[in-house]
């Protein structure tokens, strides 16, 4: 994987030293909060409901065992022994003290990590397919592009004061696991008819208050044109994006208000100018990045150990069904480690669990780990013959929950248990749903179903693209939850539709259960997924299941 060169290292160290000084000056009273706040946000430090929170970037979700161990150390020494992995492929520490944060940043810098550009109106951590470099369906590893974008956008003078934050996601596979259509810019790698690599460029996607599916501005952009083209998009946005109203400042609003054709014209015109002045990415840099992401040396020794173990161990078989995905090398598998144990907090891992994951990556996984936007951890390259051993070790660490893609693999943002912006809690909702479906023992029967929960309209929990989405609101001083159905975050991105009036916390889980039972009753057969059934049936039968039921209960009461 990519390792920092001296320039990166010096840059990060200087930033830590600078921030240490700023923290000292805030603590001794020489900086006011008004002066300090933008400085701390630039370094990923938020003030939440109960404590400060430090958000650490994990560029394109890729880390190695050394870095994971360092996160474990930080969790133990400066937090309460755990960390929270987010939908932006970041990790958040929920309990640092202000005076300790510079020390944490130093520890991060020791392993080439930082918290820069995890906040503010700049280009945020570039996210990528968490199966990058491993997936069987991949055209090309998107991470060299993501790394190039990271270097290009880090401290880019022109793009530090954009109208609003700016998020880029990239996938190298036709099956979109990076939600590219819900980002300010989404890039999908593809090849043209001549077989040359390039990108489909999508702009103006986003969730939040005004959810929008991104639109294709360029069907095929040759690889070499990427940076001037993105600069063109950002220039158009920087000049024309609305700065008068925070809620209208994202590029999705600009695209929507201007219209796709006109935006495209403006971008193409800016692109011509940019390209003329663009000297190209230095060849040695390209080579250096490509080398950093060269595939590991795979061990292709033939072995039937995996197949035999599958036959003998039903727990392993059930784990393999959901948590092992097809690798481009047939001797390998991609192992997803669920951070969604029954009744647990989605995305949380203890320091001990982080160390187990680091050990497994080192021993069996070519030293690679990924964080997925679905708040799970991936071992992207595990020899199939080693999967039984990995599974056994995961079981011991309480990490073998076999539920990837199923009803209890819930995305939930921190909500009002931590987040200062929240209008309601999301974690207890996720816990209650997970516990309920565990009691029902229907999870396998239900099949693929994505539930996503946000604790406010900012939609960090991606509720709009959940097959079942849940949005927590404050309704006259009570936590109340709106349900959306039919959302989809893949290459067929769709924004879910609201069912109608929201539910109070105690009525929410029964409503979710009723929706799922209605699906089980009305599906053609077990091969029709929830999303397919919803698309065929529409919202009506599901609405009936939740609202008529309410009336019945009111009558019975």
């Amino acid at each position, binding site marked *: 994987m990519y390792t920092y060169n001296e320039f990166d290292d010096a840059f990060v160290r200087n930033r830590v030293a600078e921030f240490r000084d700023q923290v000292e000056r805030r603590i001794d009273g020489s900086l006011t*909060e008004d002066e300090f706040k933008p400085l701390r946000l630039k370094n990923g430090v938020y003030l*939440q*409901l109960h404590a400060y929170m430090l958000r650490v970037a994990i560029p394109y979700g890729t880390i190695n065992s050394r870095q994971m161990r360092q996160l474990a150390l930080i969790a133990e020494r400066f937090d309460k022994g755990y960390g929270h992995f987010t939908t932006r492929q970041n990790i958040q520490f929920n309990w640092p003290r202000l005076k300790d944060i510079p020390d944490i940043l130093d520890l991060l810098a020791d392993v080439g990590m930082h918290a820069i550009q995890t906040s503010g109106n700049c280009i945020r951590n570039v996210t990528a397919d968490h199966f990058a470099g491993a997936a069987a369906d991949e055209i090309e590893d998107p991470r060299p592009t993501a790394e190039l974008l990271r270097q290009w956008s880090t401290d880019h003078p022109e793009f530090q004061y954009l109208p609003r934050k700016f998020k880029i996601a990239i996938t190298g596979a036709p099956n979109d696991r990076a939600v590219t259509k819900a980002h300010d810019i989404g890039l999908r790698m593809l090849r043209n008819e001549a077989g040359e690599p390039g990108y489909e460029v999508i702009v103006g996607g986003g969730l939040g208050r005004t959810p929008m599916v991104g639109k294709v501005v360029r069907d095929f952009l040759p690889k070499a044109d990427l940076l001037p083209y993105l600069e063109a998009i950002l220039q158009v946005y920087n000049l024309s994006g609305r700065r008068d109203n925070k809620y209208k400042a994202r590029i999705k609003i600009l695209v929507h208000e201007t219209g796709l054709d006109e935006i495209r014209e403006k971008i193409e015109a800016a692109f011509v100018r940019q390209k003329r002045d663009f000297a190209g990415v230095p060849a040695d840099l390209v080579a250096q990045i490509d080398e950093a992401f060269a595939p590991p040396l795979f061990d292709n020794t033939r072995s039937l150990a995996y197949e035999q173990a599958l036959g003998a161990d039903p727990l392993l078989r059930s784990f393999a069904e959901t948590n092992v995905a097809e690798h481009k090398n047939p001797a390998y598998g991609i192992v997803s480690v669920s951070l969604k144990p029954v009744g647990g907090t989605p995305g949380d891992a203890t320091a001990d669990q982080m160390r187990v994951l680091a050990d497994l990556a080192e021993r069996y996984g070519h030293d690679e780990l990924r964080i997925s936007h679905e708040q799970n951890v991936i071992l992207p390259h595990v020899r199939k013959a080693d999967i039984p051993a990995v599974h056994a070790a995961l079981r011991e660490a309480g990490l073998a929950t076999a539920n990837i893609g199923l009803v209890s693999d819930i995305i939930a943002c921190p909500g009002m248990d931590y987040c200062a912006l929240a209008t309601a809690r999301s974690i207890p909702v996720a816990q209650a749903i997970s516990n309920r479906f565990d009691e029902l023992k229907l999870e396998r029967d239900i099949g693929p179903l994505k539930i996503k929960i946000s604790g406010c309209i900012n939609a960090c929990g991606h509720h709009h693209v959940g097959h079942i989405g849940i949005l927590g609101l404050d309704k006259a001083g009570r936590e109340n939850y709106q349900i959306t159905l039919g959302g989809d975050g893949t290459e067929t991105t769709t924004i879910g539709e609201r069912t109608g009036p929201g539910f109070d916390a105690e009525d929410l889980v029964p409503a979710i259960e009723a929706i799922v039972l209605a699906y089980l009753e009305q599906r053609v057969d077990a091969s029709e997924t929830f999303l397919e059934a919803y698309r065929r049936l529409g919202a009506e039968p599901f609405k009936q299941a939740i609202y008529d039921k309410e009336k019945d209960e009111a009558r019975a009461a």
Partner: protein
Amino acid sequence: MAREYKPRIVTANDLFEGDAVYFTASHGWSRDHGDAVVAFSQDAADKLLSAANMQQDQVVGPYLAETVMGDDNRPQPLHFREAFRTRGPSNYFHGKQAGA
């Protein structure tokens, strides 16, 4: 007739630890909501808030929060958000509820 004024307290986050603190009668800060000094009029609330705002070398972001008086005549949180701030998160026994 003017609408009855809902009593308010001033709360903020501690500058060093980041947790919730409450402005007291002696113009100090307590970690216990019940210790907060209560304003029963808009005027008193404004005065409290400006006094609290003078102490930004100790706290971050003071604001007024509605409160109700408990049987012990100490202020209790009204809104669920404020109630959560007096306790800590619901998924772990961390924060104020753990005595931390």
